[in-house]
Each structure stands twice: as C-alpha cells, then as structure tokens.
C-alpha cells in the first residue's frame, strides 16, 4: 500500500514506435517481464502508443481492469508526457498517476546491441513500476496571464510579431537597441524572388508600429533584467539617452544642417561606413521613430563640453535637444515574451584569403545591398571606389559558411540573395557577373524559377569554392584586376577569373551577445549559439521557458518569408496563452510534513524564490505554492525528511533508482 493508500493496480504500455524502438528493443520480452512485476495487472505492446488507438488502450484498461497507476515506456517524456497524462485523465484517473519513461532517445536510438538495449529497457520499466506506485493524485495550480507582451528586436520578425499581437488587442512593448526599427531588411533594396522593393513593403509596417495605440515603441533601448515567470514577467528596460526628446522632435532635420561639422565625416553605421554622417543624425530618411539621435562619441559638446550648439539654436522653441538627458530605466510587467533579436553577418576578416580589408574592391554582400539601394550612398549606382562602373563582378558564395574552420552550417539565404545581387548588379552597371557557388540551394516557392531566370539572363554560374582572391597577375589581361582562383568543378579545370569587384556572400551568425540574452531570458542556445527551440519540429517557436518564444533568425538562418511566418507563429502562441487568461502550473511543488519538521530553517535560505517561510506559531516551515517553482532543492536538503517535492518525493526517486539497477 503506497501513495494514497490504495493497493496499486498498474498498467504498463510499451511502445514500438514503429521500428524506432522495436528495431532495437525486443518489446514483447519487455512486456512479458513487466507482467510479472509487483502490482502490474496488465502490460501491453502497441505500435504507436501516442496515436488515438494507443491512448484508447489506456483509457479502456483503466475502466476494464480498474487500473490506478499507469506506466508508459516510449519516447522522451519531454515530447509526450502531456499526451499520456491527458489520456489517463480521460480514462477517469488523476493525470499525475501516470509515469512516462524513455526507451527511445535513451535506449533504442543510442545503443546498437539488441541484448543490451532490451536489458536497459527492462530496467527502466522496472524503475517506473516501482516509482509509480508511490505517485499521488495532484491538482495543478492555475495562475493568471497578463494581457501584455514584450517583443525584443525591431527587425521584420519583431515588427510582425508586435503588429499581430497589437491587432489582437494585446499591449506590446517593442524594444530595439538601435535608434530605428527596421533591422537588416531596412538596408535591402529588393527582396528575392519577386524583386519587390523592400522599403515599399517594410516602411508601412514600421509606421504602423509607431502609430499603433497598442504598441509602446522603445528604441535605443535594451532589456536589462527579467524576473518572474509565465504570465507574470517583470522586465527592466534601459533607455539610452539619444539627447533628443522623441515627443518634441518633428524630424525636420534642421539641426543636422546646422551642426558645426559642415560636412558629414563619421562613418554611417546604417550604410556600413560607405557613407558619412554627422554627430547628430538620422540613420536613414524613413527611420522610425523619425527623430534624430546625437552620438555622444562624436558630438563635440558631449565629448568636450565645448561647442557653439548650433543644433540647439536651429531647433529653436521646439526644444527637442537636451544634452542633459540621462539613461532611464523602465519597469514593465508582461505576460509573454517574444525574442526576435536577429543575426549578425559573418566578418570576412576571418577569411583573409578573400582579401577583405586588403583590397578596396572586395565588398560584403551587405555593403553591396547598400550600393544597389536607391536610397543608399551612391543612389543605387553600382560603382567602384574610383567612381567607375565595374566591367566584371565576382560573387563568392558561402563565405564563412559550410566550413569547419569558420561556421559549419549553411546560412540558407546566401544562394538566393547572391542571385538577387547578380541580377541587380548587372541591371545597374551592365557588368558581367560570375557567381561561384558550392551547391546552389534554392528550395522555396518561386525560388528555383528565379534561379532559372538568372541563368537565362546569362550570369556565369561556376560551381566551386574559391581558394583565393589575389592582385598578382600571371597574364596581361589580369593586370590591375582582382583575380579569383577556383576549380570549375563541373568541368574539372582550375580557372583564374579577373574581375573589377568582388562580393563576398557572407553567412549568418548568432548575434555576438546572444549568450548574454539567452541567460537574461533563461533559455538555451544550440552549440552554434542560435536560440534553442523547445522541439525542432513540433515546438519551433517555444523555448524551454514557458511564456518565452523565439521568432526569426535568432533561432537560425531564415529568409524574410520564413521569418514573418515564424513571427506570426510566435505571436499566435503568445496569444493563445494570453487569451486563455490563465496557465496551469506543473504541481511539482514542495510540501512540508509538519509532524516531521524540526524547524531548523535550512530550507528557507536555500529557496531561490523565497517560497518557504517560517510559521512562528507552529514553529515549522511553510511553502507558498504560488511561489514554489518545483526544483526540489529543499527536499534534497531537509535533514528530517519533512519536505517532499510532488512527483519527485524521496519515495518516488529512490524507488526509481532501485528499480533501474536491475
């Protein structure tokens, strides 16, 4: 007699998972073994336990055999524990009387030897049977979910997510660290494969964000601290001083005109340094919010305290400029969070063989995006630094990607954007364009057609990874050119192709501070540094922290359509939580057995959430279930065994340990 005092009547269900489990584990043998374990009334094998007929088996057996405990041995509980809890509940049993163990990820997929795998599966089932007998019926606690959301990152992913949530009537705080929203997409001229103008589709959305009554836009701001849990996060946002009051600035730009620096002389970050700006600047004309920013690094007054402050004069009685502006910290309360922090492009200084930084006519693809952009530094002209149009341009794919020496992953978007750039460069300059690729990856709606179109337009498509870009000629035609050395692998011959301009199709990388952001929000990163989704297929925008979702390229390389789809998916997930209004919390909280508690206080200091307090009257510890997160630290530490974590009591865990040591 264990758990809630009844005699256990256990049903054991072992899943074949097609051949995923049955291919390595002799399932019938495990079932036979389970039948003879103490308390087991029925044990069954089924092809797919998670399917409806599989679940029905459990439900029927609960009725038929009067089962009061269930063990399911199949895939990882992280995947299907909730499925079997639901089935158990539908069968008329408390859902916390089921124990789900893993004989797929932990057994059949990782062991080759059938004998060993079967032995291990039996041991695991044994552990589950012993522990399930101790499980008690539990009632999960429900907590309210605030109807407001935080969206971090104002690129196309963040913009989309914010608008979707705002349209559904939720309040959104959109935090962006740059002076303007728009992200990488705002830098592009055209988007593949349709070649529609990026600004034409993006800027209306940017404006919509600014104008939406449900969106609080916080640019030039960064999240500093995150506290709380699903439904009730407390977030601190630091607003950097832009030395201009956003509500007073009308975007007339007269201050820029009036600045004591007559000529722009500082590299404009938005144009990747291809153009210059003044200390007071607006990154690009359609920036949102449409207000100026003063850069403290270059502003004379902010650096030296001395300047005629002609900008203030020009601003006049609008009084928007304020050199005394201080950083501000805002405290927000939100129910859900969407991370859309995007990516960074690969720094080609890390592949010196391509001569970036050494030869002035070697550019990154992002720099070329600015060059071909009609609102860019050259007004859309593709010209070399000397102002002349190039006659030949080479675009090198996979720079930094698909290489163990740099980043091993495929950055996914480069093939398509390189084809797009090939088209635009040819269109703007008439240059002959060579694309050097390893594999041409163009899956997607209309993408292969775009590739065909480029081939038809006569772009040279050479299959081979470029070994080097050099300026040392071996042939008179090569004098004064950049020479690209590559094996044309379709032909099997090494070629040297002299060009005027080289474009490096740099890959996508996690943001350099992705690791800090991950810690801030208590989520995980993949080995490469991308934010880790809860499940690669079935929970692609959820994270391991409830209420925190990811959208866009911060989770892995993505193009615009995919990013938008994911942002909307993240918004939908967040909405589902907020619309329901409450969320059930796993009832794995700690409890105190007052009879056993000696009042030693050890647990109180251990709890990171302050969930345990001391009842002065009874002289015992008390757990506030609303605050307890269910880590079990107190249970492990309690010297008298008075504390016990639901679902992970000493009885449960120790029985399982004993059981698996078959």
């Amino acid at each position, binding site marked *: 007699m264990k758990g809630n005092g009844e005699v256990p009547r256990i049903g054991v269900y072992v899943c074949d998972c097609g051949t995923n489990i049955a291919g390595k584990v002799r399932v019938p043998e495990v079932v036979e073994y389970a039948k003879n374990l103490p308390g087991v009334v029925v044990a069954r094998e089924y092809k797919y336990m998670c399917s409806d007929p599989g679940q029905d088996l459990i439900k029927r057996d609960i009725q038929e055999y009067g089962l009061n405990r269930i063990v399911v041995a199949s895939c990882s509980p992280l995947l299907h524990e909730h499925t079997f809890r639901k089935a158990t509940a539908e069968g008329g049993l408390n859902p916390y009387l089921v124990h789900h163990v893993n004989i797929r990820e932990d057994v059949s997929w990782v062991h080759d030897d059938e004998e060993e795998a079967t032995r291990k599966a039996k041991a695991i089932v044994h552990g589950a049977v012993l522990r399930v007998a101790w499980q008690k019926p539990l009632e999960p606690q429900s907590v309210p979910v605030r109807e407001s959301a935080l969206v971090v990152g104002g690129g196309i992913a963040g913009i989309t997510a914010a608008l979707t949530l705002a349209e559904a009537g939720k309040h959104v705080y959109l935090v962006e660290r740059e002076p303007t929203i728009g992200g990488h997409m705002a830098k592009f001229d055209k988007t593949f494969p349709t070649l529609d103008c990026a600004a034409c589709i993006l800027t209306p959305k940017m404006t919509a964000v600014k104008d939406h009554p449900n969106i609080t836009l916080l640019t030039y701001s960064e999240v500093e601290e995150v506290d709380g849990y699903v439904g009730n996060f407390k977030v601190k946002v630091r607003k950097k001083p832009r030395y201009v009051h956003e509500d007073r600035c009308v975007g007339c730009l007269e201050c820029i005109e009036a600045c004591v620096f007559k000529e722009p002389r500082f590299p404009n970050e938005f144009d990747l340094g291809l153009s210059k700006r003044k200390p007071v600047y607006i990154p690009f004309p359609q920036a949102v919010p449409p207000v100026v920013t003063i850069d403290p690094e270059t502003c004379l007054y902010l650096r030296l305290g001395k300047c005629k402050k002609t900008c203030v004069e020009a601003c006049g009685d609008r009084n928007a400029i304020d050199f005394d502006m201080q950083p501000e910290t805002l405290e927000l309360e939100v129910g859900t969070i969407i991370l859309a922090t995007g990516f960074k492009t690969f720094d080609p200084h890390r592949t*010196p*063989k391509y001569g970036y930084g050494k030869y002035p006519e070697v550019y990154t693809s992002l720099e070329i995006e600015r060059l071909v952009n009609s609102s860019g530094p050259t007004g859309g002209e593709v010209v070399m630094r000397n102002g002349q149009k190039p006659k030949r341009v080479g675009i090198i794919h996979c720079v930094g990607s698909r290489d163990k020496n740099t980043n091993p992953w495929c950055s996914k978007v480069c093939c398509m954007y390189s084809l797009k750039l090939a088209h635009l460069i040819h269109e703007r300059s008439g240059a002959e364009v060579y694309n050097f690729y390893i594999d041409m990856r163009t899956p997607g709606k209309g993408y292969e057609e775009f590739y065909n179109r480029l081939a038809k337009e006569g772009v040279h498509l050479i299959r081979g990874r470029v070994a080097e870009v*050099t*300026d*040392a000629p*071996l042939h008179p035609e090569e004098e004064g050119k950049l020479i690209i050395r590559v094996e044309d692998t379709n032909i099997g011959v090494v070629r040297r192709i002299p060009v005027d301009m080289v474009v490096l199709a740099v890959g996508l990388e996690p943001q350099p501070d992705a690791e800090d952001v991950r810690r801030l929000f208590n989520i995980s990163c993949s080995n490469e540094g991308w934010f880790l989704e809860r499940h690669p297929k079935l929970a692609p925008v959820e994270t391991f922290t409830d209420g925190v979702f990811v959208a866009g390229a911060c989770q892995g390389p993505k193009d615009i359509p995919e990013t938008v789809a994911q942002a909307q998916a993240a918004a939908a997930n967040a909405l589902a939580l907020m619309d329901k209004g409450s969320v059930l919390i796993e009832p794995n909280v700690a409890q105190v057995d007052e009879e056993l508690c000696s009042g030693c206080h050890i647990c109180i200091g251990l709890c990171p959430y302050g969930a345990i307090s001391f009842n002065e009257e009874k002289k015992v510890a008390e757990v506030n279930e609303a605050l307890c997160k269910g880590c079990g630290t107190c249970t492990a530490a309690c010297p008298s065994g008075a504390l016990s974590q639901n679902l992970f009591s000493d009885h449960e865990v120790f029985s399982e340990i004993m059981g698996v040591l078959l």
Partner: protein
Amino acid sequence: MSGYAYYPGCSLLGTGKSYDESTRAVFEALGVPFQELEAWNCCGATAYSSIDECTAFALAARNLALAHRRGDPIVAPCPNCYLVLTKTQRYLQQYPDMRQRIEQTLERLGLQLGNEIPVRHPLQVLQETPGLEEIQKRIQKPLKGLRVVPYYGCLLARPFPIVEDPWNTTILEDFIEVTGAEVVPYAYRTRCCGGALTGVIREAGVRMVHILLREALRQGAQVIVTTCPLCQFNLEAFQQEALGNNGIQERIPVLYFTQLLGLALGLPPEKLGLHRHLIPFQPRHAILQEAVS
C-alpha cells in the same frame, strides 16, 4: 637546460650549407645557447611518408626521443624538419595505437618518447632570445634602401604554423625591418616553391619558381629572403630556366633570413656562407656594398 638542441637536418649539410653556417653565426652573435643534437637522424621528410607513415613517424620520433633524453627543446631551421617533427608529435598523440608501436620499438633501442618537446624555428627562437628590441640595438650595418621580399614558403605557415595567424603574421617582415631593409609586399609569401618537383617533374617545378620570381621582380624587389633550404635552392638554382628561358634577363639573389640578419649585425660575409650562392648578392648602394664586403 644546456641550450637548444640544434637539429640542422640533411639539407643543411649539403645544398643548404650556408643556412647552417649563418644560423650558427647569428645564434652565436646574439647569444642563443645551442648545441647540435648528437647522432640525430634524417627526419624522414616528405619522401618518407610516401613509403610508409609508421616508419616515417618512427624516424622523426627517434630524434624527439634523443632530445627528450637531453631535456632540451629542439630548434630546426629547415621548415620541412620543423613540420615533420611537429606533425609526428601531434599524430602520435592523436593515434595512440601508432604511438604504442613506435614507443615499444624505441624502447628496444633504449630510447623513450616522453612528453611533448617544444619544436621551434629560429624565427621563433630569435624573437624571444634576445628579442627584436635587443637585436635592433646590435645592428651595425643597417641595410637601408634594400628592397626585400619576405618569403615564408609553405611549411612554417601550414598546417602547423609557427604563429597563431599565418595570414596576418609579420614575424619574418619584422626581422627584415630590424635590419633596416624595406619590406616589399608580396602576394605569394606562403605559396609553394615546387618543393622536390623541380628535381623530378621539372616543368611543373620550374613554372612554380617562375611565378614566384616574376612577382618578386614585378614588385621591384632586390633580394628574396627565405627560411627554407629547399625554397632557397629552387629559387636560386632554377632561375636561369625560370626567368632566362622566358626572356627575362634580370636575376635576383635569394638569401636566408639569417644571412640578411648576419650582414646587418656586421658579421663577415664568408662566415655567413654568402660565397656559396650561385647568384651573388651585390647590392647597388654603397652602404650595402660595405655590408657584404
């Protein structure tokens, strides 16, 4: 430590004799403690790996064991020896089976492999002892106005580079600058000279030499400085064929970096083996003539 275990290698006893002479002279002049590794054997070079890798590694391993017995780090001027010794150490760590076989065999000869022994090139050694600053102070005949191509060759740059970032290193350039000479930008700093090909598949080898020489001349260099006996030999001995047969009359002397350094330190040219070169180093400027006289 009784000083570096100096490992000249076979080439430095023959065609690369002046590299041996100049390295010893510069080490002595700058107070680098060294002593030849007694009874060293051939490292195995590239040719040996073509026969059998285990015996090739065993040859190199014997030298490592000799140095281990002495307890000194190895200094190897020949990049091929540097590479083979380094590679052997790495691979013996990576492939324990092979290590075991070689260790057992060495034990029968009374030798032990021991832990990793530093294998270094004179560029690295001189950078620390006495260091560039100190060398600068001892320069007696600065080679002002001499335009020099820094040529590393392959094996100091890869696959086990003597510096962290071989693409951006300036270790050889720094030594050239210390002598007062001018460094000429050279795209082919680490491009292969053809190695043993000049001797066996001559057309291919000579073409590779041609490419290197032509680029050096195009950049207006007056001398090429190498760190490798094979590079020096190829670039010098095949110049007639590589340039002359292509209608180029100019010739360019090819020195070891130790020779250039030795000259600037004021060491006598014959002590540096300058008389052994097929293309004599005859600088035009008076100040330089003094250095080589």
